[in-house]
C-alpha cells in the first residue's frame, strides 16, 4: 500500500485545487466543500492504485467534483451564482456595464458546463482552465487522445449553442 504524507500533498497542491474549484463555483462555501471532497476522493483513489502524478489527479478530481456541484445547483434551480464573496470587489476596470456583462458571461458558462455530459465538461475544463495537454487529459481520464479531442470539440459546440441561446434570452429581457 502506498504511504502518503497528506499534509505535504495538501500543502503543495491545495492552492491549485482551491483555484480550480473556485473558478468553476465562484462561491466560498461550495469551494470549501469541493476542496474536502476532492482530497477525500484522492484518498479513495490512492487506496485502489498507486498515484504517480498528484497534480494531474487532483486537478481532474477537483474539476469533476466542481462540475458535480454545478449540476446539483442546476437541478435545484439555484441559477443565480452567488457572487457576493469576491466578485463584488471592484476590479481594475470599474466600468459597471462591462463588469456586469463579464459576470453574466461567466455565470452563463458555468450554467452551460452544468448542462454538458460530465466527461465533456471535464475535458473542457482540464484543457482550458487547467491548461492540460490532450495526451495528459486522455491519460487521466483513461481514454484515447483522439477521443479527448472529439469530446472537446463536442463540448465547444454545445457550449457555443448554449451561450448564444442565453445571450439571446438576455437581450430580449433587456
Amino acid at each position, binding site marked *: 500500500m502506498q504511504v502518503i504524507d497528506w499534509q505535504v500533498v495538501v500543502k503543495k497542491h491545495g492552492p491549485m485545487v482551491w483555484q480550480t474549484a473556485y473558478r*468553476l463555483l465562484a462561491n466560498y462555501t461550495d469551494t470549501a466543500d469541493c476542496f474536502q471532497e476532492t482530497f477525500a476522493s484522492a484518498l479513495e483513489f490512492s487506496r485502489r492504485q498507486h498515484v504517480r502524478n498528484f497534480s494531474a489527479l487532483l486537478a481532474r478530481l477537483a474539476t469533476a467534483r466542481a462540475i458535480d456541484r454545478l449540476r446539483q445547483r442546476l437541478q435545484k434551480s439555484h441559477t443565480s451564482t452567488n457572487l457576493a464573496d469576491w*466578485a463584488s470587489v471592484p476590479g481594475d476596470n470599474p466600468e459597471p456595464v462591462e463588469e456586469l456583462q463579464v459576470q453574466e458571461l461567466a455565470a452563463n458558462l458555468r450554467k452551460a458546463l452544468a448542462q454538458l455530459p460530465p466527461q465533456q465538461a471535464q475535458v473542457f475544463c482540464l484543457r482550458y*482552465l487547467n491548461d492540460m495537454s490532450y495526451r495528459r487529459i486522455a491519460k487521466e481520464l483513461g481514454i484515447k487522445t483522439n477521443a479527448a479531442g472529439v469530446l472537446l470539440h463536442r463540448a465547444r459546440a454545445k457550449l457555443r449553442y448554449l451561450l448564444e441561446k442565453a445571450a439571446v434570452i438576455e437581450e430580449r429581457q433587456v
Partner: protein
Amino acid sequence: MEKPKDIVDKAIDVLAKADVPPGPPQELTDATVAKLTEASSSFQEEVKTIKITERIKMIKSLIKFAAAALILIGSGYAIGLLSAQKTPDIEQLYATLEPAIRKKVLEDIERYWQVALASNYAQLKDEFQQQYRRDLSQFAIETLAATNAVTNQRLEQLIESINTAQMQDRRWFTAAVEQIELNRLRDKTQLSNGLESLAVQTADELEQTKQDLVLLLSYTQPSRLVPNEFRNSNNTNERSKQ
C-alpha cells in the same frame, strides 16, 4: 479587419481571468489534513486486521496440512503394518520414518515463513515509517510543550522580580516622602517659633524705644511740660486722630 472573438473563447477568457481569493484558508487545510490522516490510519488498521485474519487462516491451513500428512503417514504405516507378511521391526520403521517426517515438516514451515515474511516486508516497512513519523511528531509536540512551559516559567519569574523591584522602589519613595514631610513640619514649627520670638522681641524693643523717646522728649522739652501732661497731650492727639 479583426475577426470577432468566439463567444466560447470570450467566456473561457472571463472564467480563466476570474478573481480567485487566495486560499485555501488555514482552517480548511488543517481540517482536511486531519480528516485524511484519520481516514488513512483507520484504513491501515482495517488492512492490518485483514492481514492478521489471513495469517490465522494460513496457520490453520498449515495445521490442516500437517494433520493430513500425519494421518497419511499413520494410515500408510497402518496399511503397511497390516499388509506386511511378517511383523516389521517397529523401532527400525520409526527410526526410518521420523527423520523424513521431521525434514518434511521443517521444510514446509520454513517455506511458509519465507512466504509470509516476503509478503509482509513492504507492510512492515510502511508501518515502521509511520511509527517513525508518529514518534517524531510526538517528540516535537512534547519538546514544544516543554519549551513553552519553561518559557512561561521564566516569564513569570521575570514579572515577579519586576514587581518586587517596583514594590521596593515604591517603599523607598514613600519613606522619602514621609521624611520630607517630617522635615517640612519641623522647619515650619521652628520658623513659627522664631517668628513669635521675633515679634515678642520687636514689641519689647518698640516699647523700650517708646520709653526712650519719652525720656528723650522729657529732657528736651521746657520744664513746665511735665511728662504726665505730655502723656495727656499725647492721648488727646491720639483721640483726635481716631
